Each structure stands twice: as structure tokens, then as C-alpha cells.
């Protein structure tokens, strides 16, 4: 007997299609897309690990790692509240993201349920919850995580530095965001995205996209159109509703 990965019905081995839901049995299970030829090292410049319950540390080696109870690269076979295919970890554009694969009980990032099919940037020490299992993310060899080391930062009005990570940094009131602004009720729950992108010649460019927030995003006090990607330069001032940050680039020290 073969179990259908979609509806869980038992099928004879000769069945081409699942007798219950009609799934074509010869195709890859949902969420198990074609493997990418790109190595994870080409996508992120740090090493990423999962700290799994009872199993300890597991290194991520693929550009896309699927976690599930029955299917995927990492199996949580003992947790019945984990779906057969639950979530994916995707390395892309310099960052590592988590994406819920329409699991039955959902995926939580730092205690907040993330909507399915949408990617969220991860940071070291983030906790992903699937079923009853909690998985800690750890990054090692991440370049210059110290506050004063080279990189691009947002500086708030009290002079605090927030490092922008490669990839998409979401900004908003919800704790799910990469940069959470809970000091103002005028900031939208998911307000904007700051994308830090590396060019082939290793230059870093920062882009801003307002996600249609009610109270808008401003660059140097001028409102930016919603859903439009605009380039941000060092020393620009970016205002999310009524909260303003200055963009600071710290150049690497030359030997």
C-alpha cells in the first residue's frame, strides 16, 4: 500500500492516480519542488543551523530545506501535530527565510503564526514552532554582527543602531517583522520592506517598498508611493508613519 501524500488515502502500488483525491502518484509531493542547482553557500554568506528537539544541531545544506512529519529533508516523525509537509527554510538574496507550506496547524515564528505561502526573514536565535516542536535557528560565521562593524544600519532618534540584514527586512508594528516598531500606533502592522541587496561586484544597495500603509512612508520627508520600490542612499532619512530613522553605512576598515 502507498499512502497519498495529499489526502492520506491508502492506494495499491499499481494505482497511477490516488483513488480518493485523484493526485497523480508519480509526481513529487506538494512542497517538494525540483531541487535547485544553487548551493546554499552561493546564497548566504553565513552557516545556518537548526537546533532540533532531542537531536541537537543540524546544518542546512540546501537552498530549500523542507521540514515535515512524513516528507521533506528534515523529518519530525514523532510529532503528530506536524503536517506531512509543514514548512520550508529558503536561502535567497543573502538571507534565510521561513515559509509555511499550508500546514494544518500552522507555523509560528517567535510565537506569532505566519500566513502560509509567505516568506519571513530569519535572524539568529529565532524560534520556529511546528506542531509541538520548537526549532531554534542559529547562524554561525555571520559577518560582523557587532554593532560597530561594517554594514548598513537604521539609527533611531535615541541613536540606537539596527543592523539591516541581507535580503528582505520587513518593518511594522507586529513582532513578526524583522524590525518591529511598537512605539507608535500609526505604524501599520506590516508597513514596509527594506531590501538589502548585494550586486555581483559586492556592492550593497538598499531599496524601500511601502506596503500600502495607511500613514505612508517618507524618504527625506517626502512621501513615497505605495508598492513602489525606490532606492535608499546612506544618510537618507526614512520615516514610517511618524517614526524616523537615519540610514547609516559603516564601511569596512581597510587593513
Amino acid at each position, binding site marked *: 500500500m502507498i499512502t497519498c501524500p495529499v489526502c492520506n488515502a491508502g492506494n495499491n502500488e499499481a494505482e497511477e492516480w490516488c483513488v480518493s483525491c*485523484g493526485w497523480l502518484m508519480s509526481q513529487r509531493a506538494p512542497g517538494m519542488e525540483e531541487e535547485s542547482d544553487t548551493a546554499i553557500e552561493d546564497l548566504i554568506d553565513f552557516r545556518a543551523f537548526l537546533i532540533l528537539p532531542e537531536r541537537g544541531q543540524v546544518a542546512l545544506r540546501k537552498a530549500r530545506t523542507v521540514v515535515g512529519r512524513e516528507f521533506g529533508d528534515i523529518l519530525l516523525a514523532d510529532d503528530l501535530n506536524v503536517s506531512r509537509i509543514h514548512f520550508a527554510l529558503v536561502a535567497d538574496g543573502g538571507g534565510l527565510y521561513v515559509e509555511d507550506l499550508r500546514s494544518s496547524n500552522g507555523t509560528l515564528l517567535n510565537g506569532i503564526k505566519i500566513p502560509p505561502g509567505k516568506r519571513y526573514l530569519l535572524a539568529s536565535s529565532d524560534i520556529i514552532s511546528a506542531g509541538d516542536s520548537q526549532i531554534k535557528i542559529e547562524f554561525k560565521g555571520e559577518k560582523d554582527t557587532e554593532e560597530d562593524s561594517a554594514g548598513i544600519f537604521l539609527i533611531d532618534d535615541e541613536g540606537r543602531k539596527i543592523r539591516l540584514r541581507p535580503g528582505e527586512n520587513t518593518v511594522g508594528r507586529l513582532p513578526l517583522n524583522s524590525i518591529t516598531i511598537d512605539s507608535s500606533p500609526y505604524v501599520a502592522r506590516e508597513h514596509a520592506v527594506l531590501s538589502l541587496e548585494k550586486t555581483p561586484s559586492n556592492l550593497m544597495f538598499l531599496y524601500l517598498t511601502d506596503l500600502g500603509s495607511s500613514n505612508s512612508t517618507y524618504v527625506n520627508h517626502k512621501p513615497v508611493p505605495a508598492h513602489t520600490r525606490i532606492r535608499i542612499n546612506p544618510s537618507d532619512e526614512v520615516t514610517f508613519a511618524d517614526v524616523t530613522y537615519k540610514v547609516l553605512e559603516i564601511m569596512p576598515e581597510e587593513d
Partner: protein
Amino acid sequence: MNPIEEIKSQETKETSPLWDEDVRKEYTYTRDVHSLEMTAALFNSFILHQSAGETFLLIEFLSKEKPKSGRESPLNLVLLLDRSHSMFGGPFTEVIKAAKIVIDQLTGRDSLTVIAFDHEQKVVVSSKRVLNKEEAKRRLGEVEVLGGSTDLHGAIKAGFRELREFSGDNTIDKIILLTDGRPTHGVTEDLSFFSLSESVRDRGGSVSAVGVGLDYNEDLLSSVARLSGGGFYHSPRPREIKKIFKKEIAHFLNVSHRGMEVYITPKKWVKIKDIFGLPHRFENGKHVVQLPDLEKFTEQTVLCTIQYEAHPSGIYRLADIQAKYLHSSTGVDGEIYGYVASRFVDDPTIIRKGKNPRVDKALLRRNVKSDLISTIRGIRTRVISREEAQHQLRDYQRTLILSGDTKEAKELGEAIQQLSAGEDESASKTLAQSSFNLERGRRSASNDEPDEGDGSDDE
């Protein structure tokens, strides 16, 4: 250039190849058994994953048996001829002439029953083997118009009784009902007619109804024909009866697959919502659609709306399809199996590649049929003016030509002319016939019905 040619030439210019050939090969299921080809396809082979919705399923049956000179199955024919007072004179003379032509077309293997009816039924000819054609014609010549009211239900019931009497293992059992009036005697409720029609169908027969003149009830006659799997014809002038009889007998003798039933079994997360125009029932988790007899080199379509729940992305078989039939030329019961599949995709931009133009055309046809009913009602109730009705009909005519239904498009042309001449009732009946044909889903495989001539050569 006539209007039909003009629209056809526009069609050539406007056609764009939206349908991706690879998609067609992958998601259109075609199977061929007993010269019967079954093709099943969705309106769009791609469906957006993780979203519930509706789409259309088209199942086409094509008889690939080419018309031959000979025929295999004997015909068991019952003619029900209205001889009530309104048929007096010319109309009944034409009916007798037409019936005599029918006799000439039969062979010694065929059975024939002729019943003349008004408020009662008289069996004029009852012959298990039509060996003595002259005798049968002589008896027909003796039938007189007596007058009185019309017991339509009693006539069909008597015809059904006679049909069963001569029915054999491989006989083509057919009733042709000809009337110019409404039921005024005996059972007159529509529901009784409907259940009687279904009984005829269940016993492998059918009733083809021919309405003569302008006083008959086209809704009732077309329903009797539809529910029993027969044809429906409007004959505005008695002279046309001969032509219709000839055409209908040709249809009967051309049948290649009979008693067709299509079983559609939807998979999990899929439901059949509507099945357009054809009698159907639900049993043991399957939708059973009853199809009229399939003639050689014609096609018959089944169009359904299906509802689906959200599916994870991937390829799914959405429904299993099975058709059972009697293969006329061999007398063997046959079955054909198939399915319809779809790919649930997460990229909305590729969905347009999966659109199937054949299903699109079938939908156009169905929409015209629905609109036609509104126009017919509008004409009858005078809610819309003649000019407005003609304008609407020209629109439908254009759509029908684009969908390849030139025969129905020509009929709409006739109705437009009838409206121009102030013959509203005649136009309404012509349109009822077009609506019936569109609903029935039977089409000539070549898209052009053979021209039956004007009947003048039958004298």
C-alpha cells in the same frame, strides 16, 4: 457576401491560438472504442492552487462510423398521427403522403405501427414485418379526419404499448408524434407527459415530436422529445412534414450507438453542480447522464459545471468518466472509460495557457440557448419589440456562427425574417426548435447537416 460568410471570414481573422498544444495533449483525455471517441476537457486545464472555485467540464462523444449504404439493426417504428378536426383538408393529406414515404423507406425486417388519434386511438397499421407496403399504404389512405378533441397522452401511451409489442434485442425503437394542437382530452398535466416520456426512454425508445402550424404547445412537445431522447421539429407548413419525416427516419437508420449513459464520478474535493440540458440522475455517488442515440459521424456533448475545493499544487484527476452504450452494428454492449485531469498551479500567469477553446465554444452555445429562451419569452409576452428581438437574434446568430453552429444560425435567420413579416408566433416556434437543438448538444461532425431538399422531389 451573405451574412454567414461575412461572419465566418471575420472569425478567421479574429482567431488567436490561445490553446497551448502541449497543454491539450496533456490534459485532454481521448479514448476510442467501437468507433466511439470520447474526449473530456476542462474550461481551463490550469487552476490556481489553494483556492476554491468553479469551472466547466466538457465531454464529447464522436461516432467515427461513416454512413454506409446498408444498415444493421431493424427499425421498430410507431407513427402517431393527429386526425382531430383542425387537421382537416390539406394538412392531413400531407401527413398521409409523408407517412407513405416513410413506408417506402422501410424494409421487410422493420416493424411499423400507425395510430391515428383524436380523443381516442385507432391502430391503422400494425405490422411486425413490413412485407406488404401497398397494403399498408392502402390502409393509410382510408384514415379520415373525424374531429373531436385531442388525447395526446393517450396517443403516446398507446404508441408506447405498440412499441414494446414489436421491440426486439437489437431493434431501433422509435415513436414519431405529429400533432397540430394542445392536449384537450384525457390526461393534460405536463408532469404526466414527462414521466411517460422517461418511461419510453427507460425502455430504450424515444419520441420525436413534430408540431404542425401555430397552435401546438412547443414547450410540451420539446420536453417530451428531450426527456425521451427524441427530436423536436416545427413544421410551419404542412408541405414540410414529408421533409421532416424523411430527415427523422434518416436519423434513426443512421444510429451507431444507442442507450448511451454517461457516469461521472467526481473525486474528493470536487462536486458536479449542474449538467446542462440533458436528463440526468444521481446514484451511488455517480451522476448518470442520459444521451440521445448517437448517429454515425455525429458528435454529442455533455457540459457540466464543477465545483472544486482548494487543492495543494500538483496534477489531479478530478473526475472519472464512463459511458455505457449498445453498439448498433454489432449489437454488443460496450463501455468506454476516461477521466478529466487538471494541474493546480501557484503561478497565476500561466493560467491563460490552459484555456480550451472547444469548451469555450460549448459555453457560448449554452449561453445563446439561455438568452434565446429569454427572447422567446419576450416575443410571446410582447415585453420586447420586434425590432429589439431581431437585434438580439442577430447577435446570437453571430455567436453561433463563430461557435460553428451554422444550422442553428440559419434557423435564427428564418426567425428574423418571420419577425420582419409580423409572424411572431411562427418565429417563437422556430426559435423553440433552435433552442431544443442547442440544448440537446448533438451536432454533425462536419458542422453541416446534409441538405434534406425541399421535399418537392417526393411527390
